[in-house]
């Protein structure tokens, strides 16, 4: 159990979190098509977060397989104990690398699990926005084709 997640509720609510909590019900803010269609990861981050300078951090925990069982369904998990406002995943070799951005309101654990498509062997980068800065962790996921999979 993540105590930090629970403490967040009791602790001070940051301006960013206030803004998120204040969103109307079923808040579908304008989808940033621009960010999600960018061909380069750095441009996608710039569009999504207004910044693209990133710092690698071992506090960003990225879990993804070394060799994907199947490139259509690769389980990816990002988690951090840092105070996080957002989490994103970049899949470098995909036509548009920004796969997902997630907003983490106060009281929510900085954790996202999902399943991604990867067309070929690629670097996968987890991005955590914390204190206005972007922190990352990357690894290579090998995607193989061919075998006995008839």
């Amino acid at each position, binding site marked *: *159990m*993540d105590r930090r*997640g*629970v403490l*967040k*509720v009791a602790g001070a609510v940051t301006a960013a979190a206030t803004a*998120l*909590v204040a*969103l109307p*019900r*079923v*808040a*579908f*803010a304008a*989808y*940033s098509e621009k960010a*999600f*269609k960018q061909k380069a990861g750095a441009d996608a981050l710039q569009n999504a977060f207004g910044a693209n300078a990133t710092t690698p951090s071992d506090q960003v925990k990225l879990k993804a397989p070394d060799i994907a069982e199947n490139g*259509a*369904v*690769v389980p990816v998990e990002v988690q951090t104990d840092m105070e996080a406002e957002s989490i994103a995943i970049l*899949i470098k070799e*995909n*036509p*548009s*690398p*920004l*796969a*997902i*951005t*997630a*907003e*983490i*309101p106060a*009281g*929510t*654990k900085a*954790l*996202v*699990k*999902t*399943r*991604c*498509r*990867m067309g070929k062997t690629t670097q996968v980068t987890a991005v955590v926005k914390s204190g206005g800065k972007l922190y990352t962790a990357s690894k290579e996921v090998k995607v193989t084709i061919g075998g006995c999979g008839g």
Partner: protein
Amino acid sequence: MSSIRIKAKDRKGLVDVKCLMKHNMETGLRKDKSGKKIPEHWIQDVTAEANGKVVFAAAFNTSISKDPYLAFAYAGAKGDTLKISWKDNTGATDSAETKVK
């Protein structure tokens, strides 16, 4: 019937949420049998509300697998009304509600 399936369990104040959304997540790159491109069709936004308050929100592109899976966790309790909604690129929406176990 909703396209969204939710499993939500209270683990000592942290609610573990797993959801599966039935959706083809067409990339726009696939071709049908006649050789025509199948138009892109994907879930763009997902929002989760617990008792009316947004506890998680995500935006996707077609790099997310068919029948998108999302798991997250928020500070909450058994009995919370958890509602998950999505909107796709055609403007279609869907939602589902459940009580946290």
